[in-house]
């Protein structure tokens, strides 16, 4: 099982077992990453599962869809390495991924 690490804005670290096929958002909720809110339940409609991808990993993720790009426009404190965690599927290749969370989720 791939392991992923979420580092919350207050420096709380969660290293979690991620199930292949699940999304990073689901992994975060199950693992108790409180600063992932996921109001819309994974429909790419709320921008409340916003994460910053560790620089070493940015280019190793599947690219953003237009929909995700649009939605990120509405998020708070967007950076070049911003993603919506509901749009990142867990795969074996993502073992070791590090994601950080912003201090505010939502638009």
């Amino acid at each position, binding site marked *: 099982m791939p392991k992923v690490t979420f580092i919350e804005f207050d420096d709380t670290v969660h290293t979690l077992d991620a199930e292949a096929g*699940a999304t990073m958002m*689901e992994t975060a*909720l*199950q*693992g*108790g990453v*409180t600063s992932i*809110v*996921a*109001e*819309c*339940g*994974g*429909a*790419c*409609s*709320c*921008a409340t599962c916003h994460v910053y991808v560790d620089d070493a990993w940015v280019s190793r993720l599947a690219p953003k869809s237009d*929909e995700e790009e*649009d*939605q990120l*426009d*509405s*998020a*708070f404190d967007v950076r070049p390495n911003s993603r919506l965690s509901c749009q990142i599927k867990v795969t074996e290749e993502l073992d070791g991924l590090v994601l950080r969370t912003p201090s505010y989720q*939502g*638009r």
Partner: protein
Amino acid sequence: MSGLVVIGASYAGVQAAISAREAGYAEPIRIVSDEDMLPYQRPPLSKAYLLDGVAEDKLIIRGDKYFADKKIDLVLGEKAIRIDRTGKRVELQNKPALAFDRLVIATGSRARQLPSAAGLQNIFYLRSLADALALKAQLSTAAELVVIGGGFIGLEVAASAAKLGKKVTVIESTRRLIERALSPVLSEFLRDIHKNHNVTIRFSETVTGMTQNGAKAEIHCANGDKLNADLVLVGIGGIPNAEMAADAGISVQNGIMVDAFGVSDHSEVLAAGDCTSHFNALVKRNIRLESVQHAQDQAKSAGSAIAGKQVVYDAIPRFWSDQYDAKLQMVGLSEGHDAHAIRGSIADNKFSVFLFRDGKLVAIDSVNRPGDQLIGRRLIAGGAMLSPAQASDDSFDLKGLAGTLAPE
């Protein structure tokens, strides 16, 4: 110390418990739910869940381990039946009563029932996962669907069913869709996209009665028409589950009356989510909201208050809906608006309707234009001076204007 008891384990109940813990509350916390499932996501129930195989376990919001780590006890599949406020106990259907120092009521809302549908087969309401399971099973074999009520739940189910190739008719009693929450421009847009997907909408139409016609339900319309349906989805609004609170002597008027910290007129009892009524500064009156954002944000204030931290609940309301390829997002409250401006292009399915009241921006309804929503929230919260002409001018720098406002 008896600690905190929370009634209801959906967004508000869970968030209140988590926020109390995070704000430092160290006493026992128990959450009672009449459903036997772990807390789950509700927005997908009328959308993705009906369309594809979203597994039930993927809907779980937080797992067992999370609650164990936070020392929050879940009492699932157990109905709270009475609040003994003076004795500070919640009586349960089958188990011994739970004593509390503080109580959070997060009982949500239930679907308003259609009296004429009582006793018939094929009638569905949609609130819970159990409702969605039943609806999905019937949907797999149904050919003809009638949706009573052109609100969010009704239209989302209509869109999902149309995508599955069903013949769908929506019966709406008013002259436009989601009249209470949406601008006329958005109502017309929704009408058109449903029409483009072969959904028939009957406006200004009411149901006078229903009968069972073999395996089908027969719906009698006020104009004399009769419609047959393999499945009738009734989405005519919600009723707050506030009776238990009222019976306990807590003030209830279209919801449990709470202040900006989620506290009722009895300081030991708090409430959050669909079941509450709170004063909203945008419309300057008490309102009741049904949304995930409201449930979570209000519950954060309630949970914090229990731990002795004052966090005012004054978030600008946000709503969203997915229908076909349209992502609708709403921020603010458009009630009583007297002017509007359109930014973007309706023809391209990418636009926002800026809504004004007395010269002030009060709400923005967006379709596939999420970027306007974040700026919009800041503009509304900050009371920005924005004119309809500026709002409709795509070259006018909204971000720049938002930047001039005091930081939140």
